[in-house]
């Protein structure tokens, strides 16, 4: 059974894809059948993923160094052989488990959440394709295969974020997500191209062996660093790192289950996963690794400061995702695959939990989004409220919840590798995380009930995933503990985890508890006036509330430069290219008349340009070609 699952692991992405095709082509009209097919496929994939995980982790240390890998030739050309394959090792099998689990729960949740939506079947089809793309990315054996699925993931996110296409904001958000991540993809494609040119292969296993011997391939360490940084630009876009993070908070325009899927398990962690997969590159290219670490650390801190003042539930969660991803990227930058993947693992559970919980709240509040409009919801929605509280404790890093272990691991690695600055930045971020999360929790679930709200608890299909995720948010940390859990096997090189010293645990816990306490004082017990604090912060508050005006800045760039260039070139074609010809006629003082007769004038213009271009070409060739030199020298030899 385990053997079968490992041999046929390609079924894991294939089944959701099959469900996408089936729904799209056949069962679109029947909502129930579509949902059934979709959920059945993803659950089967989940079971297969569990079997694969058992097979990989059960085999002890066998697969750490040498992954279980097979592939088929896809296409080839001289110097380039591209195959599609399956690569199973502890990292990918953990990811398979997380992705299929979260995707299954999100689909079950969607049964209730999307009930009555006119595009019900379409939604499930997209979800299936999304999961399939992500799973295909996870098992990729080489960078090109990964890139293909990477783009598919991007396309799906475009479709899903723009799911409510009748909303202008959703359309804009979808476009923004697509465009922003494409900027990243461009850099990444360059990186891939360079790797192919220099090393002649894109296979992870082969690259891992030859990259440390980069000098044999005729490049310097500086070039390798450049390649690594180019490659990192892709994850910067996909995983919402500064400065390409702007699309992620807007991505909540999609239906909430999609946000949960994007934020917890699919799209955004693709970037982290890519860096994790190519970590051997960053082990060698240490300057690039430093860049990665500081981008991650800064993003974590920066996004947390924005989250402090946001007022929409999903937006707070979105910035928290950006911040948490920053942690993961930072962990990779300091060289710890274990810490990063551990954080990814636990984060997937509590972030999915909180997004689905937020969805449950929004579902009950009929479209209200401002946390200040909520209050006291724990009485009417006890299950949602208490599972959400568990998520809040987990993300704040309170013992014994999952986030405690993974966050400690990252702090420890940052400190051990000598990044003391990053360590303290991470501690401050942890305090802020606890504060803004609990600010939201207190404002939403505690305090006075508002009379105008008529909340109700969500249906069972929506609560079930919450229970499962809440449970995992508690125990998830133990499953993957680096000492003896899955985390032991997920590593690059030697086992690296140690025990965090007591002072570090104390510091981290103090930061978290302090953040929660401050939030309680300001927003629950109202001991400290939040208005006074906001006033005192002054311009800082404005900056944070407006997300540092980065969106506005990009919009300005887009409007003035990109659109402008297109218009400019069009203008050049109309006025300058034609104008050059007409300008010659200026000497006859009749140029204006030519412009007025465009219909009859144009044809002649075209003809003139045709001939003029030929003349220019001849002159160019005559004076520039090596032949010209030969003519001058007397006809060559």
């Amino acid at each position, binding site marked *: 059974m385990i053997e079968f699952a490992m041999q046929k692991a390609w079924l894991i992405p294939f089944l959701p894809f099959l469900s996408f095709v089936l729904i799209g082509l056949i069962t679109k009209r029947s909502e129930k059948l579509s949902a059934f097919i979709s959920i059945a496929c993803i659950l089967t994939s989940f079971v297969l993923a569990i079997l694969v995980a058992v097979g990989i982790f059960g085999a002890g240390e066998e697969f750490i160094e040498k992954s279980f890998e097979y592939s088929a030739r896809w296409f080839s050309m001289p110097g380039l052989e591209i195959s599609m394959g399956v690569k199973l090792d502890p990292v990918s099998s953990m990811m398979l488990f997380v992705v299929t689990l979260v995707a299954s729960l999100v689909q079950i949740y969607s049964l209730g959440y999307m009930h009555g939506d006119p595009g019900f079947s379409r939604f499930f089809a997209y979800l299936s394709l999304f999961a399939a793309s992500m799973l295909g990315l996870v098992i990729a054996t080489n960078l090109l295969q990964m890139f293909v699925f990477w783009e598919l993931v991007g396309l799906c996110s475009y479709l899903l974020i723009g799911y409510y296409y009748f909303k202008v904001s959703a359309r804009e958000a979808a476009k923004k997500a697509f465009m922003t991540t494409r900027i990243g993809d461009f850099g990444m494609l360059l990186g891939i191209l360079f790797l192919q040119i220099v090393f002649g292969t894109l296979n992870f296993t082969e690259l891992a062996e030859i990259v440390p011997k980069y000098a044999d391939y005729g490049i310097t360490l500086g070039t390798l660093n450049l390649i690594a940084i180019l490659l990192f630009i892709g994850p910067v876009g996909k995983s919402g790192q500064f400065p390409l993070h702007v699309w992620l908070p807007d991505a909540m325009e999609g239906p909430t289950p999609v946000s949960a899927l994007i934020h917890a398990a699919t799209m955004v962690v693709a970037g982290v996963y890519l860096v994790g997969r190519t970590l051997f590159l960053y082990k060698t290219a240490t300057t690039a690794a430093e860049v990665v670490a500081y981008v991650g650390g800064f993003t974590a801190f920066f996004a947390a400061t924005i989250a402090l003042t946001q007022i929409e539930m999903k937006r707070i969660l979105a910035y928290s995702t950006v911040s948490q991803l920053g942690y993961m990227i930072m962990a990779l930058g300091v060289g710890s695959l274990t810490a990063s993947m551990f954080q990814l693992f636990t984060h997937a559970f509590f972030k999915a939990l909180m997004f689905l919980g937020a969805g449950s709240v929004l579902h009950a509040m009929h479209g209200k989004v401002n946390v200040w409009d909520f209050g006291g919801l724990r009485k009417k929605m006890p299950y949602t409220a208490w599972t959400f509280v568990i998520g809040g404790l987990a993300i704040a890093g309170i013992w014994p919840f999952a986030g405690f272990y993974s966050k400690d691991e990252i702090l420890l690695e940052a400190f051990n590798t000598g990044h003391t600055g990053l360590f303290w930045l991470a501690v401050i971020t942890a305090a802020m995380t606890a504060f803004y999360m609990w600010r939201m929790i207190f404002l939403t679930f505690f305090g006075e009930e508002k009379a105008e709200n008529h909340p109700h608890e969500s249906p069972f299909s929506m609560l079930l995933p919450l229970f499962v995720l809440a449970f995992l948010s508690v125990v998830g940390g133990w499953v993957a503990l680096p000492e003896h859990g899955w985390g032991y096997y997920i590593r690059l090189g030697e086992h690296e985890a140690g025990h965090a010293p007591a002072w570090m645990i104390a510091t981290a816990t103090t930061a978290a508890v302090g953040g929660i306490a401050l939030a309680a004082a300001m927003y629950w017990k109202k001991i400290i006036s939040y208005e006074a604090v906001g006033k005192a912060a002054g311009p800082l508050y404005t900056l944070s509330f407006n997300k540092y005006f980065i969106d506005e800045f990009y919009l300005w760039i887009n409007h003035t430069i990109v659109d402008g260039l297109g218009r400019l070139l069009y203008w050049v074609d109309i006025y300058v290219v034609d104008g050059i*010809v*007409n300008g*010659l*006629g200026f*000497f*006859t003082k*009749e140029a204006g*008349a*030519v412009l007025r*007769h465009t219909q*009859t*004038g144009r044809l*002649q*213009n075209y003809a*003139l340009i045709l*001939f*003029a271009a*030929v*003349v220019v070409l*001849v*002159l160019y060739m*005559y004076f520039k070609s090596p032949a010209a030199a030969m*003519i001058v020298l007397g*006809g060559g030899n």
Partner: protein
Amino acid sequence: MSDAVFTVAFYVFSAVTVLAALGVVLKKNLVHSALLLILAFVGVAGIYVLLQADFIAAVQILVYAGAVAILVAFGVMLTKRGDIRESNLANRQKWPALFVVAGVFAVIYALLGQTNWGPLAAAGPEDSVGILATLMLTDFVVPFETAAILLTVAMLGAIVIAKEVKNSK
């Protein structure tokens, strides 16, 4: 033919061709332009004779000077409405056109003048028609047949387009 006679004849035919062609463009009356076109064709035919391409020269006179130009003249007379004396006016791109044409000429003149064309071929064959006929049905059978189809298409196209003009009135 002595070299001197050849040279004189060449410049005469060239001058006729060039001046007639300029007249085609510059004459304001389209009928005059069409008639000058015949003269230009005849001038080119003279150059063909000088190059010992007697068959091409004959075809040039029969087909171009005889048929094509007359067809053009007929076309002008049948379709043109309004004052025939003002039918072929230059548009307002005379000067830019002159500039570009001068450029094309200068380039061609300069580059061709610098070229060493290698030894000239021996005198042309006596019976060029017979050789051409043989070649067209042997070595050049594919282009020959293609040309036949091309002419069919041209005729078909002329009918389709011309008839349409009549219909749409």
